């Protein structure tokens, strides 16, 4: 459960991303695949070396879903239910991969925003994304 302060920090972070979902999404995926190559096993359809267009397309999809989550921090389960079904029935991404994606997200935000990405914002963003990951994987069994 996010406190009011944490929700405000999450909204602050999202304000810095909104409008640039494709670019941030592409970079997020590129960092994920570069730093944690085993994660590419979930993206066979993108090929061994996904090109920029593929990363932008898929990256946008991922970040838009994050945007939906940001708008519905009070009822994540309801808002993300279709995505949770998709992950449980089709994608079946091992839950251990989500902390890796989250780490790449923090690093990306830190490198782009530097001082603007404060420690309080990072703490709230980590808590929020971890909650999203829990919701996305809780229908697995």
């Amino acid at each position, binding site marked *: 459960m996010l406190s009011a302060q944490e929700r405000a920090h999450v909204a602050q972070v999202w304000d810095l991303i909104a409008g640039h979902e494709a670019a941030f999404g592409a970079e997020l995926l590129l*960092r994920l695949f*570069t730093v944690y190559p085993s994660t590419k096993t979930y993206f066979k359809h993108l090929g061994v070396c996904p090109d920029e267009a593929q990363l932008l397309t898929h990256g946008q999809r991922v970040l838009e879903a994050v945007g939906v989550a940001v708008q519905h921090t009070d009822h994540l389960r309801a808002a993300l239910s279709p995505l949770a079904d998709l992950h449980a029935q089709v994608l079946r991404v091992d839950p251990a991969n989500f902390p890796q994606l989250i*780490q790449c997200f923090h690093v990306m935000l830190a490198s782009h925003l530097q001082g603007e990405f404060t420690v309080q914002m990072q703490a709230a963003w980590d808590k929020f994304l971890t909650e999203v990951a829990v919701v996305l994987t809780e229908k697995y069994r």
Partner: protein
Amino acid sequence: MDAGQVEKAQSLELLTGTDSLCPSVLFSPLRLLVVYPWTQRFFQSFGDLSSADAIMGNSKVKAHGKKVLNSFSDGLKNIDDLKGAFAKLSELHCDKLHVDPENFRLLGNVLVCVLAHHFGHEFNPQVQAAFQKVVAGVASALAHRYH
């Protein structure tokens, strides 16, 4: 480790070492306590940890953090034998300090974030990958003697 990673290890050694401490790196242990508050369990006697501001301004935590980073940096001088370099520290963390090795991975991740803050756009995916491998190597070395 490949040549690129050795280079990164040497950079990391420089960044965390006593003589050329990059000021923002000093904040890594402090940031750990804010972003992952359960890590505060090891620092009950360190005074006020009640808020992010209290933690970031806590001189005891800062001093301890400096000690941790100096050990980190010293260990990195032996990049080809991290397990050997951190053997005694590994035993200490297991037998006396009782620290879950997951904490080493968390600190490593926070250190990488701080470096990203510091280097900005230069901290591209390849650079991140190299530094993540170095911190993972240290975390693994620190966990190696656990029993």
